[in-house]
C-alpha cells in the first residue's frame, strides 16, 4: 500500500489546480512560507542559543522557553498550511523526490521532539538539569530544524 494515490489526487484537486494556475500564486505562498521559516528559526534559535549559554544568560531558561513557544507554534501552523498548499501544486514530483521525504521525516521528528521532549523538559525546573543535558537538547533541536530547512531548500534544486 503506497500513498501515491493521495499525491496524484492532491495534485488534480481544486487546490492543486489553483496552485498551478499562475506562477505568482505559488511564489506568493512560498514567500509566506519563508517568512514563517524566519519566525520559527527565531523562536527555536532564541531558546537553543540560551540552552547553549551563548545568549540571554541573564534571562531564565524557563522564561525564554515559554516566551518563544507560542511563536514557534504560530510559525509552525503557517509553515504546515503553506507547505501543504505548495505540495498540492507539485505533489507527484515531490512523491518521487527523496529530499521531500527526508524533509517530512525530519519535520515529524522535529515536531515530536519540540512538543513532547524539549518543551516539557524546559517547563519543569530546567535549573536542575545538568549543563550538558541542556546543551544536548539545544544542539539536537537546532540540528533537526536546520535539516528540515536545508532538505526543503534542496527540494527546489532537485525537482
Amino acid at each position, binding site marked *: 500500500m503506497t500513498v501515491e494515490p493521495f499525491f496524484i489526487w492532491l495534485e488534480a484537486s481544486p487546490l492543486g489546480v489553483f496552485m498551478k494556475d499562475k506562477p505568482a500564486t505559488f511564489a506568493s505562498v512560498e514567500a509566506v512560507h519563508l517568512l514563517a*521559516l524566519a*519566525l*520559527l528559526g*527565531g523562536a527555536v*534559535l532564541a531558546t537553543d542559543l540560551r540552552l547553549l549559554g551563548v*545568549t540571554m544568560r541573564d534571562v531564565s531558561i524557563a522564561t525564554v522557553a515559554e516566551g518563544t513557544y507560542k511563536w514557534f507554534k504560530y510559525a509552525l501552523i503557517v509553515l504546515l498550511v503553506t507547505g501543504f498548499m505548495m505540495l498540492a501544486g507539485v505533489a507527484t514530483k515531490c512523491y518521487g523526490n527523496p529530499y521531500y521525504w527526508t524533509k517530512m521525516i525530519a519535520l515529524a521528528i522535529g515536531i515530536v521532539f519540540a512538543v513532547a521532549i524539549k518543551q516539557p523538559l524546559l517547563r519543569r525546573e530546567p535549573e536542575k538539569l545538568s549543563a550538558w543535558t541542556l546543551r544536548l537538547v539545544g544542539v539536537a533541536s537546532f540540528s533537526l530544524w536546520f535539516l528540515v530547512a536545508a532538505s526543503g*531548500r534542496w527540494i527546489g534544486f532537485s525537482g
Partner: protein
Amino acid sequence: MVDRMFVDFGRWLAGTSWSTGLHESFYMFNWLESTHVLTLMLSLGMLFIIDLRMVGLAFKNTPASQLASRLDMPMNIGFGIMIVTGILLFTAIPDRYTQSVWFRLKLILLVLAFINALVFRRHMNASVSTWDKDPVPPKRTRIAGATSLALWTLIVICGRFIAYDWYDCGKTENSDFINWAAGCTAEQMSP
C-alpha cells in the same frame, strides 16, 4: 544615461571569469543561495523576536532593552552573512539583477529598514528607561517595530520574486512604468 551605466556595469561584471564560473557552477551557486536563505532563520529570526517585543506581543516581562541587546549579536552575525552571501550572489548574474525591478525594490527597502532601525535605536537609547519594563511599549516604539516587520516582510517577498522573469526587460507586455523602474534601455525594448 544612468540606465546605460547599470547595464554596462552588469554586463562587464557578468563577463568576468569569476562571475561566469559562479553562474555555471552547480554546487557553489546553490550552496551560496541556500546559505543566504537559511541564514534568514538567524538574522530575521532574531529581528522578529526583538520587534515582537517592541510591539508588545512577546516577552512582555523581559525589559525591552535587555532583550534587544542580548539578541543583537546573533542577529548582526546573521546580517553579516546575509550581506556577504548577497553580494556574492549578485556577482553571479549581475546583468540580470541590475535590471530586476524586484532586486532594485529589495535594495531600496533594505535601506529604509536600516534607516528605520537606526532612528529607532537612537530613540530607544535615549528614552528606554521610561518604558523598558512596560509589557506594551509606547506608541512611537510600536510604530517603529511594526514598520520594521512590514519592511522585512516586503524584503523577503521581493527577494523571492527576483527569480521570476515576469518583468524582465524585453517583455512586450511590460508597462512603461515597469520599463522605467527596471532601467530597460531602448535596444532591449525594441527587439
